[in-house]
């Protein structure tokens, strides 16, 4: 459990997965190859099935996209989506929307990408 300060200064306890800025209630349908995943907490929980354990362990090393998780663990993307969905629902993983809310093809992002590409010439 993690603490959040309420307006009057007294600490309210909320479950860890609600205190993050990621989505805790991702359903399989909102998971995408580009969804960024992080492990909640700093220890890999016990009692996980082997494939889920591997996923959480992998993500304990830092954030990865769902596609990278599938590739590194050599699991089909569809299987990883199912496993990740369950892990998110149980508060083991946090989902971060990878792209800006204003639309993935917005001018500002494209200009940044163009600058970034040109800088590599």
């Amino acid at each position, binding site marked *: 459990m993690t603490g959040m300060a309420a307006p009057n200064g007294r600490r309210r306890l909320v479950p860890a997965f609600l205190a993050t800025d990621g989505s805790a209630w991702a359903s*399989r349908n909102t998971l*995408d*190859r*580009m969804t*960024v995943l992080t492990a909640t907490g700093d220890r890999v929980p016990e009692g996980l099935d082997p494939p889920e354990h591997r996923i959480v362990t992998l993500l304990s090393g830092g954030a990865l*996209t769902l*596609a*990278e998780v*599938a*590739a*590194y663990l*050599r*699991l*089909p*993307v*569809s*299987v990883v*989506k*199912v496993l990740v969905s369950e892990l998110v629902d149980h508060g083991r993983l946090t989902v971060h929307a*990878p*792209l800006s809310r204003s639309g*993935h*093809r*917005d*001018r500002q*992002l*494209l*200009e*940044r*990408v*163009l*600058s*970034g*590409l*040109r*800088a*590599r*010439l």
Partner: protein
Amino acid sequence: MAKILVAGAFGVGKTTMIGSLSEIPPLHTEEVMTTVGAAVDHLADLSGKSTTTVAMDFGRYSLPSQDLVLYLFGAPGQERFRALWEDLAQQALGAVVLVDTLRLEESFWVMSAVEERGVPYVVAVNTFPRSPRYPVEQLRQALDLDPRTPLLTVDARDPTACLRVLIALVDHLLAHYT
């Protein structure tokens, strides 16, 4: 971060291009598909059906000056895996459609697929040694390209050439899609 598709018929050099750009060795994901061509979403659906596995390459290309990461996904080259496009095309900035002049017609379905999904694209002709060179206008006609769609040549083994293709794509996006 952003996603760019690298599309084209089987064997046109998608993996080569991704490998030229990617800062990590290209990764491969697997997709499990049923014989009717739809990606399998529910594991329970697999029982009793014959399935096939499609491997797709992808790579990472960082833009540190902007604190951005590009992911380059190789879209499947065989038309029977067209159903995967729906998933891949979502949220893609755009696509590079690689073609080989030796078998241009194999790319037609790819171009239809990107157009149908509304994914902006550039066409890059991979300069295989044995593939004939044609004048640009002739290629544009053969591919029935919209006048605004950029057509470039590229040696997919050359990282700088591949980078120029990405730049051309983003230029194109800024000019016509924002």
